[in-house]
């Protein structure tokens, strides 16, 4: 593989940042040029990213395209980037969403255009880095770097009425979670360092260590798992940490909502698969009932709240709570089907909810309202719009032939293998999901035009259609031929499942054998 010598991962990560720096030197009056440059940068990044699946070794569970460099040797921090089947599609999703985010802001953003695009590109770099970093310090840096520009995106260009509240709420929730995770990272670092004698933040090295576990809530592994959990669960967001989401998603500008829904939420689920599951397998098994309960509550609660929304954007936001619960449920089935379905569904949710927010944004640009009551019968005025909306909606509710179906089916399969009750709850979520989505579509699109002024609305122009069409193509591709997507992640997922099965022996032993613990002696030793 040529990837080992050519730093392709660093390029796709830092190219947007470089673009952002270039933007700083363009005069603010030249808004058109700024838009072109950022479209160019995100487009080129997408093209380079496409080389990744093409040269990816589908049969390997190992990290690929790995890059290493020394960074802060004094405390064992290095610059390590790498990608496996779990991160591959999330990286591609990120690269696909970014040019769409630029395109959909083309006419909607007219003030402080320069800052806006600099922030967009910064977020792009942060998101790529989160999925590619293999050093905990580096990972944490990227994880936090995403927050600041997103805070400004919501706070400056959001809906005027409640944007400040939404922005600070988003920032506070996620920051609190991530700093607690930081403590977890440090605990792992010192424990592993005392065990192996070398202090390092290298994720792959830290994964080789087994962390002490016993069936008590306060065992080392369980506590660290909880520290990570808090950060990831807020990001996902899982019930009851979801309250920042409806505010942030609703108040953000369209591109912000799209990025939030499509990629930012996946940082949480990705964190669980990448770190919590393989690193703390015993604790993961220990917390399964807890996680499943929270996920099921999220699925049903999220869907029921959707049924009573009058604001279309808020409805889509709450549907994310429900869908993300679904992803978490599949993940915590902890078997092949569940995990594969969960990871595929991360991509699917990114595509379909991203598209839904675009659809809300397109109509908002026209009628300057998000209220369902202000729409009605639009399909006769805007047929192209209605068609794309319909396909997206079907993707979101999991119609066979579209991408959502594959993911949901696998998740159900995985859940059913563990317990039919879980599957039953999950199915009720699908039914409710179909109900609120179809009802939304009916109220906004069907029938006669309810408002006189809506009769003059223009259908989508080419630029607007171009934001949705790539996503629609992906709906069909994943829906009709998901094999390459599943095949690429199979070896990596298998590795995680194998690790969990190994841990299951420990956890399910009649009298659980505590994982060997040198914590009490180990953790006070001096650093060399």
């Amino acid at each position, binding site marked *: 593989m040529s990837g080992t010598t050519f730093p392709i991962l660093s390029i796709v990560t830092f190219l947007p940042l470089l673009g952002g720096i270039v933007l700083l030197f363009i005069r603010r009056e030249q808004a058109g040029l700024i838009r072109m440059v950022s479209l160019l940068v995100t487009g080129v990044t997408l093209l380079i990213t496409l080389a990744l699946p093409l040269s990816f070794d589908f049969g390997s569970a190992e990290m690929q395209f790995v890059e290493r460099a020394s*960074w*802060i*040797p*004094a*405390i064992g921090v290095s610059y390590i980037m790498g990608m496996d089947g779990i991160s591959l599609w999330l990286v591609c999703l990120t690269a696909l969403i970014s040019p769409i985010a630029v395109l959909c802001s083309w006419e909607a953003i007219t003030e*402080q255009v320069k*800052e806006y695009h600099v922030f967009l590109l910064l977020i792009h770099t942060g998101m790529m880095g989160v999925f590619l970093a293999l050093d905990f*310090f580096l990972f*944490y*840096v990227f994880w*936090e*770097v995403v*927050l*600041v520009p997103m*805070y*400004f995106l919501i*706070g*400056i260009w959001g809906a005027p009425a409640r*944007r*400040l509240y939404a*922005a*600070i709420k988003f*920032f*506070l929730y996620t*920051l*609190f979670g991530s*700093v*607690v995770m*930081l*403590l977890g990272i*440090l*605990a792992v*670092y*010192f424990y592993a360092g005392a065990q192996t004698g070398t202090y390092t933040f290298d994720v792959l090295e830290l994964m080789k260590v087994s962390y002490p576990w016993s069936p008590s809530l306060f065992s080392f592994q369980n506590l660290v798992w909880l520290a990570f959990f808090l950060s990831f669960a807020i990001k996902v967001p899982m019930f009851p940490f979801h309250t920042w989401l409806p505010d942030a998603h609703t108040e953000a500008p369209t591109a912000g909502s799209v990025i939030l829904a499509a990629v930012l939420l996946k940082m949480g689920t990705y964190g669980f698969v990448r770190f919590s599951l393989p690193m703390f397998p015993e604790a993961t098994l220990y917390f399964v009932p807890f996680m499943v309960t929270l996920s099921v509550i999220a699925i049903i609660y999220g869907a029921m709240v959707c049924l009573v929304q009058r604001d279309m954007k808020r409805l889509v936001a709450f549907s994310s709570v429900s869908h993300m619960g679904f992803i978490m449920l599949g993940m915590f089935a902890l078997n092949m089907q569940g995990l594969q379905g969960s990871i595929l569904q991360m991509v699917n949710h990114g595509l379909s909810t991203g598209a839904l927010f675009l659809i809300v944004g397109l109509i908002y640009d026209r009628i300057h309202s998000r209220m369902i009551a202000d729409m009605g019968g639009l399909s006769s005025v805007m047929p192209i719009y209605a068609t794309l909306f319909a396909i997206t909606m079907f993707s979101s509710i999991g119609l066979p032939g579209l991408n959502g179906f594959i993911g949901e089916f696998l998740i159900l399969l995985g859940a059913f293998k563990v317990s039919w009750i879980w599957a039953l709850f999950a199915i009720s979520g699908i039914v409710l999901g179909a109900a609120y989505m179809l009802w939304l579509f009916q109220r906004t699109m069907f029938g006669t035009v309810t408002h006189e002024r809506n009769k003059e609305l223009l259908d989508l122009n080419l630029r607007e259609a171009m934001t949705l069409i790539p996503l629609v193509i992906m709906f069909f591709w994943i829906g009709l031929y998901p094999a390459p997507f599943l095949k690429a992640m199979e070896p990596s997922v298998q590795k995680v499942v194998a690790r969990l099965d190994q841990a299951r022996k420990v956890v399910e032993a009649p009298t659980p054998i505590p994982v060997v613990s040198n914590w009490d002696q180990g*953790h*006070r030793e*001096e*650093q060399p």
Partner: protein
Amino acid sequence: MMGTYNPADVLHALPEVFLSVVAIVVLILSFAAPKQRGWIETVSIIGVVGTGILLVRAAVPLFEPGAAAVSVFSGSYLVDKFAIFFKVVFLLATLLVILMSIDYLPLVGAPIGEFYAILLFSTVGMMFIASGGNLLTLYIGLETMSISLYILCGFLKQEKKSNEAALKYLLMGAFSSGVILYGISLLYGLTGALGFKEIAATIATMDLGNPALLVAMVMLTAGFGFKIAAVPFHMYVPDVYEGAPTTVTAFLAVASEAAGVAALLRVFLGAMPHIQVDWTIMFWILSVLTMTIGNVVAMAQQNIKRMLAYSSIAHIGYILIGFVAGAKLGISAVLFYVLVYAFMTAGAFAMVILLRTETVKGDLIEDFAGLGQAKPIAAAAMLVFLLSLTGIPPTAGFVGKFYIFGAAIKAGYVWLALIAVINTAISLFYYMRVAMVMYMREPPKALVVSPSRPLHVAVAFAVLGTLIIGIYPGPFLEFAQASILGLLQ
């Protein structure tokens, strides 16, 4: 160990001697060449830079492998890496403060000559604290610094608030110095020694439960607690910080806090390592109180100088975490954080000075409204400082917090780390409020900032420091780690 006076010893204190001479020259210039604007400032800057060069010259042999710390004047004056580290921080802070003051002082109508002379004298005092090998040297350094600071606080003679600040600081400062002196005399009475090493050696042979020893420890804790503005000894801070000229506030917040930390480390680690268990508990409580009260009260502030005052209190709380955690990791985390804190806090105060113009006083958070649109570069600089103060990567503040939290986790103080985490979330709220005002409000019709070149240099310098330490902290961490080797037994 009775030593005899050796005239060659003076050479080891050459940086301090040089800076004192420069201060006197500045003082003479202030009446000999009053009309020559620019002379005084230039000489002051040359003095600080020259002292820095002398300091580097003195430091080079220390960094050779196998080199031992130098102890002169019968052990009362130490030249070790620890002293070098803090002196670097002091000189850095002094330099930044001079750059900030050049155009600020004429603007607010403060006398120029004496200002720089007193500032430099204060710095000399700090350098003696860092090098103090016994309680007396340290105390004299502390007083030289403090008395200079009392005067500097009252430099705006026409302003009531400045006078109030000076008087308040003087009264509280004198009282706390008395408390420290009482602690020192108790220690002297118990051990018959003033040198840190001798005191430690004597305490090792004593009954550690001796009430007089504990009283001495409590006295010193309270006295130094005042100097570093730890809660509940912080009451004077907001008023003094608000009333003093802003450049003096920056100096107080950065250099004098750092000097307090240096004194704390010298005394507690040097003289009282054997009763570490006792003072660790006290500082655990102080740390929790300091960061929590600092952060919570900062949320309610409308005046940015007061907000930064409470924020600096909160940061002392974080620094104390490293002190509580102890060991190599904890103490080097303290040193590293002091360096980081110096850059970001000096930078934030420089921004406040930047907003001070003929017409706008510029010390309300409201005054930052619309800065993001009107002056994007200035706003970006402030944003870097705010993010660093919150502890968000890729800024220095993040690495500092990371290191401090690491020390706490390693030493098993998980609760302390958790409380610090909650505090970080609280602090985000008020730091981001400034960012919000900068970026999410419309600017007033004509928003002007100070055109002062030296001030711009100071801001740029602080931004660079904050970012470079944030992105490539390796060498700075190694410097901090190397600096504490002699300190810990």
